[in-house]
């Protein structure tokens, strides 16, 4: 059965370095948006990525409105919304609980993951909404779902929104796991300290027709490690499998990939396994970098945010460098320290999550 092709036709983002234009400037100039914070944990410093004082839900609507204005659409009435989020509205529940010492003023509808889709549906009246929550792969999986629906011809327009705000639960939770960095994170660096939790919003319009600015979402693939709840399979089986599935879906070979946008959280476990997976699968050593050194880890929003970065790398034909790297732990992968112009036809973007949930997306330049 022939598949409809899937085109990324408009997008916008918000992260600790600003909108998409400022995001790409920060990435290419290696200017991190991470700040050192003690407001969540008075006894501990943590490198965090925040776009405060912007109000998160107002920003969510504004970013989505920006995508609508860029798009060929007049409204989203015939568009499916698929949200990816890992925390939803838990930040508001925390505020109520810390103040009241009870749940009585928590509104369950504002607590749940669905607060994101309901906020956007109220503002834009989508044809239908869906919402995924697979921790840090949430919006990558939302993109995978959107691609499959358009491939089948079930929808012509799908808006994917990845969104997660900072909250005590995630900042203190990652501290409890011992994986937070007190400084700007240093993905793939030897002796790296850990990750930076951050907030982010990424909104991407996918359609079944191309426009002059389109990038193609060529393929996607998922897998499960079935190994451990938080630690990745040390042999990288799950990471390799999801990338192989995405390449197969895209109909390309590993050696066709011109840039790898890594998950690259800056934790010991993730980066070692991801580097091993890339070293094993991509023997032609394409450039790879983790842009989380600039944005921090935006959790459920990361898949969408990094999909936007992948599209920008293709449009600008310029490789994103690895910021905050001096000595790489794995010298068999190609981690460029400076940005440079290059022919970029295909980019693969990785997302990995708790529970061994793995997703890879392949984006391609229009031929």
């Amino acid at each position, binding site marked *: 059965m022939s598949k409809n092709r899937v085109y990324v036709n408009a997008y916008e983002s918000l992260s600790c370095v600003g909108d998409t234009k400022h995001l790409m400037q920060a990435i290419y100039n290696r200017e991190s948006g991470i700040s050192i914070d003690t407001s969540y944990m008075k006894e501990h410093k943590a490198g965090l990525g925040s776009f405060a004082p912007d109000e998160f839900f107002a920003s969510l609507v504004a970013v989505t409105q920006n995508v609508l204005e860029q798009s060929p659409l007049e409204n989203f009435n015939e568009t499916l919304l698929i949200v990816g989020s890992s925390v939803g509205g838990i930040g508001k529940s*925390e505020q109520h609980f810390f103040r009241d010492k009870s749940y009585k003023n928590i509104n369950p509808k504002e607590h749940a993951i669905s607060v994101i889709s309901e906020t956007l549906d109220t503002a834009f009246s989508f044809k239908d909404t869906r919402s995924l*929550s697979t*921790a840090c792969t949430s919006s990558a999986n939302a993109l995978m779902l959107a691609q499959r629906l358009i491939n089948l011809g079930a929808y012509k327009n799908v808006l994917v929104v990845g969104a997660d705000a900072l909250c005590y*639960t995630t900042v203190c939770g990652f501290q*409890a796991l011992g994986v937070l960095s007190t400084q700007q994170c240093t993905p793939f660096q030897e002796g790296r300290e850990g990750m930076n939790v951050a907030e982010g919003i990424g909104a991407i319009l996918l359609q079944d027709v191309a426009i002059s600015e389109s990038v193609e979402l060529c393929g996607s693939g998922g897998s499960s*490690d079935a190994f451990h709840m938080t630690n990745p399979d040390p042999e990288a089986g799950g990471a390799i499998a999801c990338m192989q599935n995405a390449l197969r879906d895209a109909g390309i070979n590993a050696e066709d990939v011109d840039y790898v946008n890594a998950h690259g959280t800056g934790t010991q476990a993730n980066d070692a396994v991801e580097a091993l997976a890339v070293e094993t699968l991509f023997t032609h050593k394409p450039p790879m970098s983790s842009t989380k050194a600039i944005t921090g880890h935006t959790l459920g929003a990361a898949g969408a945010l990094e999909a936007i970065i992948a599209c920008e790398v293709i449009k600008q034909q310029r490789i994103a460098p690895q910021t905050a790297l001096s000595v790489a732990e794995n010298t068999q992968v190609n981690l460029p320290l400076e940005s440079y112009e290059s022919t970029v036809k295909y980019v693969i973007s990785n997302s990995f999550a*708790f*529970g061994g949930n793995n997703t890879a997306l392949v984006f391609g330049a229009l031929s």
Partner: protein
Amino acid sequence: MKMNFIVKKSAVVQADTKCETLDEKRIVPKMMLRRRLTRAARIMVYLADACDFRDGAVVYGSAFGEMQATADIVGAIDAQEPISPTAFQNSVYNTAPSYFSLLHKNKNEILTVSNGNETSRNVLQTGALQALTTQNEVLLVCCEALNIANIDEVNTCTDFLESGVALTLTPTDRSVTVTVSKCEHKGFAPALWAMLDVLSACKSHEDAVIAVEL
């Protein structure tokens, strides 16, 4: 776009407070793993076992996720006590199906849906898509585990503090044999209703064929 699917297996479980007959010792023989399971994970592996499903793509849904782990974390932060790393790793919405994948070494795709009262409708749509993508049987589970201290301060949606529903979908070219109607399922959280609609419609039909709107 509507496509047809065979519902080969289905199961449901519910309790006012706590499901007592989840047969954990047989289904999860390894004690270390069994001890780590959340309530939702226990319900999920029970329902998967009832559907005789171990290997394949899974679509799981929950409107409110892992409430006990979330409450433990927020309570610890408020009390300025250490957070349990296990509570944090168990707090994500894909915890239950991830334990299922660990239990059965299932390396297939797992997707987790959470969209309020539309959750099980979204699970059906997503499960149907995954069945078409894999051209194989897919397990769909929707579960709420809300039995935490003081939940009555916020619970207005269900009489059953623990409940879950599961079914399997397999793509088919056969014609529809069962029409699914929307019903109110008294006592259950509305997040489960769409899958309960399928369960009710198919319970007296072997290998019922239903249509699912993608």
